[in-house]
């Protein structure tokens, strides 16, 4: 077991390093440099620009810059933002809770809507309710999130005043962005819940139960639903990545703080240390999650639980 763990950790490390190199390389070939954002090119003399580049360390060759960031990172120093010298690690830790809150709230919305619609559509298989539920579910996947977000803002916040349109303090500010992002996830969950419920309904043991005299309703809700919950919740695990990515757009639309906002701003400004820090962080989270998942397969033999 220790060997498996060690191999797994080693390859995770490789993946993290790889993603750092990849992002670094992309940013390196990105046109322009950070000084473009912090100094107006039409007033800057070449000496001022050269000095600024030197002070920021962006005049160094690729490998030196990378070695420096990487070396510092290993020692736990994630560097400072080129824009305002803010320490990167602090910045990420400050903003992560807001993103996590949004992701959690969106998952909640996604599961609630997804389950209700999914169950409805499975129970009423191929009847109009099924089709409506599926179409409603698909709407979530089919609308550009920035558009549905703005529509929600205009309708529920500006016109009706039910929820604040922006900010990241308190649960009220979470409602609209979570609905926006959650409906995307809901679409996937509807699909998943429907098909797994149908699988189970059609499986033998249900037939058996039914033949034992249980009512159709009891079969549906007691057994089929309980079993369908499992893949739905599993789906969240997969959707978390999607949702984290979704925050890039949503956090801008709703003027929220968060990791997505930081990294898109930093990418635009070519603020290398910040981009590297966030990528390292998200790669780290991703790898941890996947390693945990894989390890749990090894530790808990699913067949054992199934037979129970």
């Amino acid at each position: 077991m220790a060997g498996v763990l060690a191999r797994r950790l080693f390859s995770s490390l490789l993946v993290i390093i790889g993603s750092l190199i990849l992002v670094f390389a992309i940013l390196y070939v990105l046109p322009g440099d950070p000084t473009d954002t912090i100094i107006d090119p039409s007033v800057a003399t070449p000496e001022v620009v050269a000095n600024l580049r030197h002070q920021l360390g962006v005049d160094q060759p690729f490998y030196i810059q990378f070695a420096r960031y990487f070396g510092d990172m290993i020692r736990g120093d994630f560097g400072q933002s080129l824009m305002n010298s803010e320490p990167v690690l602090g910045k990420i830790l400050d903003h992560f809770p807001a993103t996590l809150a949004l992701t959690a709230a969106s998952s909640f919305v996604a599961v609630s809507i997804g389950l209700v619609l999914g169950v409805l559509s499975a129970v009423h298989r191929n009847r109009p309710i099924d089709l409506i539920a599926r179409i409603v579910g698909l709407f979530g996947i089919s609308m550009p999130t920035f558009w549905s977000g703005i529509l929600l803002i205009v309708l529920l916040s500006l016109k009706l005043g039910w929820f604040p349109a922006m900010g990241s303090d308190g649960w009220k500010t979470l409602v609209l962005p979570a609905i926006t992002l959650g409906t995307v996830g809901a679409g996937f969950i509807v699909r998943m819940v429907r098909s797994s419920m149908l699988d189970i309904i059609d499986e033998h043991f249900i037939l058996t139960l039914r033949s034992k005299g249980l009512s159709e309703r009891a079969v549906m809700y007691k057994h089929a639903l309980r079993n369908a919950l499992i893949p739905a919740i599993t789906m969240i695990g997969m959707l978390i990545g999607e949702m984290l990515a979704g925050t890039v757009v949503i956090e801008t639309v709703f003027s929220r703080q968060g990791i997505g906002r930081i990294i898109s701003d930093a990418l635009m400004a070519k603020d290398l240390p910040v981009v590297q820090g966030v990528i390292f962080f998200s790669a780290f989270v991703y790898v941890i999650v996947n390693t945990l998942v894989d390890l749990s397969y090894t530790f808990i033999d699913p067949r054992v639980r199934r037979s129970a």
Partner: protein
Amino acid sequence: MNKRKPLILTATMLLVLALVLAACSSSKGKEQNAADSAQPAAATADTKTDGSEGGAAVQGGTLSYALATSPDTLDPHRSGLAVAVRVLRTIYDSLVVQLPDNSIKPWLATSWTVSDDGKSYTFKLRQDVKFQDGTPFNAEAVKYSYDRILDPATKAANAVALLAPYESSEIIDDYTIKLNLSTPSRAFLGNLSQALLGIVSPTAAKKDGDQFGLNPVGTGPFKFVKWEQNAEIQVERNPDYNWAPETVENKGAPYLDGITFKIIPEEATRIGSVQSGQVLAAETVPPQNIVALKDDKKTQLLQANTVGLPYTLFFNEERPPWNEAKARQAVQLAIDVDSIVKTLYLGTYDRAWSPLTPGTFGYDPSLENSVKPDLTKANALLDELGWVKGADGIREKDGKKLTIHYVDGTPNREKRNDIAVIIQQQLKAIGISVEVEITKDVRTVVFTNGAYDLYGNSQVNSDPNALYSFYHTAKPNGTPTLPRLSDPDVDKLLEQGLVETDDTKRAEIYKQIQHYIIDQAVVLPIYVFPYTVAADRSVQGIVFDTLGYPIFNSASIKK
């Protein structure tokens, strides 16, 4: 299928972790945010009404003010963004202030003299000023601030360009300082009035080093409280403030308890939040909303034109055929700027006629209405140059199509991309094909490679000498100018303008320059950018400085 079950464990664990962290963060958020969430901020404790007729200012209250983008840093010497200046202006003061008539008046300096050669300025400073951290304001602080800009370790940006040709300072006594320039400059005093050359607390700047921009300390009417990145910046009343310049009605401490600058990038949300009472004021109102706001009983619109260079399209005079005045004039005659401004800005922006904006010293109003669209004449000019319309309606000469490579550097800020779209259609009418390139990398495309025929830019500036860095022949190894113009006559005039001490003569020089630029169609001025603020009717007393930045000293919130 059966591989999924363990995943639930992981997913659930993550969810729990997320909820716990979220709970932590929102409770942290609450304690900092009593004053301003969805409720308008007016209700704060120590409210005293001096005369309820609406004229007298009400004490107290926190103004929530929505900004369109996030400031980069609150270190004035390092910042390069106009949005930062709106916040910087509340925290920092300058030595002098510029009035709308372009005269320079005292602020932190009480008086000054200029040496005969124009190369040294001696300032007498106010003796009753102290920084928000208690550090006394004196000659030492001024010297520290300006030398700090020159110090490469500061990583100063636009401030370096503004401070030029400053060389060094001599402290004469505690409250007298002499600034030495390498060459005389009539623009220098005006530049000193800008927020980017604000005076910083030496104690705080030395202590915080490059973190100073996150913990800014100045002598301004408001003290920095906190900055939540991408969310808000809070400043609070500086109770000791007593040294406001002439431009401000309230000489003492501000009426407001504080200001919360909220960062709201989405236009519709930003303006809508004022109308729905979620913030009290919001900046940069898009034209379509300006029009709609005029009928709004609850909301008022404040507006100030910016000064300096209007939004101008610069021809690259080094790229044929646009090096020829006639070709440029044809474009000038074919573009209907009035129609562009009316269509896109719905009559809310003024059309620009000159390379300078109306508020700038030396502006020449006689240029107004001097250019009228005339397609016949435009076609004739191109015919004359030998460009003949081909089968697709685009002109050709020697097998080459007549094209304009139009470069824009912003993602549709102030609808600049939309201008390109209209010009593309307008120039098609006289047989010019326009390729539009939107790039982030202005330095490479425009300044290094010069790969453009038209490029648009504007600049907020306090002095007509702003023209120097745009129209004077570039230094042999320096950054090229935008029009890449090299005309000895213009050079001479610009050099004279920089040092001429007689204001009438100086204005005359700049008028000549403006005329030349328009007559030769060196550039196409498009619009003058108005800084606009939508505010709840209860907000009073927000004024704008000469450059168009908001000043909050006299602002108050009526109950």
